[in-house]
């Protein structure tokens, strides 16, 4: 179909032509805009702000009830002030999770999304003025418990941490490939319950993740008994050191999947690429 002369007026759209006899013409405009480019632009602004202050930002995602807040509580206790932590909590309702973090003496801000199933870059930007970024080493953003929607929204964070608890199916990475493919590390949580749940195989969960062509580390952690906490904290410290080395060279870090996607699709900047049909110049 031709983009310029109007021959793509079909029986299906002919009724849209003007009734007074003047012709309407159809112009096709090729665009290659990312659908979420407003979100992505805000996410880049968030990331630039974090980078100016050298704050490593980690997005925690999982089903509801997989132990995200418990992992944060155990992490804060284990670090014992060794790193300056702050937390943004996302839930549909209540301040409950933020209150649990504050009870440990750590700054926490709750975003209640109402009915929205995910955090987006603008919601995160709204709470950033309340954070003392200069005095934070690591900011955790606990996303709304949901294995679908949060994976589509860049918040401006540097790393994705996806939790899978042993009370869920070990084939979840196969069922929710978009979410698990985005993980920079996967935590298998509540491993203290494994003895009672012989149907969950951590090896099978890891195999499902590998089928998604992910080489992300799989950390087996019990926030309750402390099993695996050392490996998790080692990973955290190692990523923080890596991030700080990058910042010394004025570089930053994006979640692995997102940076790859941008490079491969050639959409590094969400700018408009018009190929407008020729239009007569009018004075």
């Amino acid at each position: 179909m031709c983009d310029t002369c109007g021959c793509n007026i079909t029986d299906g759209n002919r009724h849209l032509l003007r009734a007074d006899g003047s012709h309407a013409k159809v112009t096709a405009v090729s665009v290659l805009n990312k659908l979420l480019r407003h979100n992505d632009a805000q996410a880049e602004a968030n990331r630039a702000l974090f980078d100016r202050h050298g704050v490593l930002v980690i997005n925690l995602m999982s089903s509801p009830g997989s132990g995200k807040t418990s992992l944060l509580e155990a992490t804060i206790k284990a670090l014992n002030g060794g790193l300056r932590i702050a937390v943004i909590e996302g839930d549909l309702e209540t301040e409950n999770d933020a209150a649990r973090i504050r009870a440990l003496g750590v700054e926490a801000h709750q975003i209640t999304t109402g009915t929205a199933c995910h955090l987006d870059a603008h919601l995160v930007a709204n709470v950033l003025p309340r954070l003392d970024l200069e005095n934070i080493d690591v900011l955790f953003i606990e996303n709304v418990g949901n294995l679908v929607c949060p994976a589509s929204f860049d918040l401006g964070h540097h790393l994705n941490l996806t939790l899978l608890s042993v009370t869920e199916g070990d084939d979840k990475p196969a069922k929710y490939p978009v979410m698990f493919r985005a993980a920079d590390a996967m935590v298998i949580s509540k491993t203290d319950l494994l003895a009672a749940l012989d149907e969950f195989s951590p090896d099978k969960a890891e195999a499902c993740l590998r089928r998604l062509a992910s080489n992300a580390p799989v950390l087996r952690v019990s926030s309750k008994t402390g099993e695996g906490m050392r490996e998790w904290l080692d990973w955290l410290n190692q990523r923080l050191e890596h991030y700080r080395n990058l910042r010394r060279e004025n570089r930053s870090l994006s979640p692995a999947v997102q940076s790859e996607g941008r490079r491969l699709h050639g959409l590094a900047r969400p700018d408009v690429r018009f190929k407008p049909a020729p239009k007569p110049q009018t004075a």
Partner: protein
Amino acid sequence: MPMHELSACMELIDQVEAIARSHEAERVDTIVLRIGSLSGVEPGLLESAFEMARLGTVAEHARLRTERIEPRIRCRACGLEADAGPGDLRCPACFGTDTALIAGDEMILARIELLQTAD
């Protein structure tokens, strides 16, 4: 409506309105999206969100067409390019996990068709 397709749709309408304005179009006839099956956006839900989002806009009478893009990978080890299923992105030849997704996660406004009054 608690679905992220609605957020995507609101952004879509914003972009479409801006393009229609810059082309002085009367209305939008067709909107063509490219949605990868690993984008996290469900075309069916996007279409129902669009039914709501378009009301009162220049795209009120527009048709939404979705081109679904299936995953395709390139193996960094053996160089093979191949189609892949959403649940298995390994190289089908060497079963390596070091592959790059070269298609299938896009969420792109590809094309719109505008109706303009010809003078």
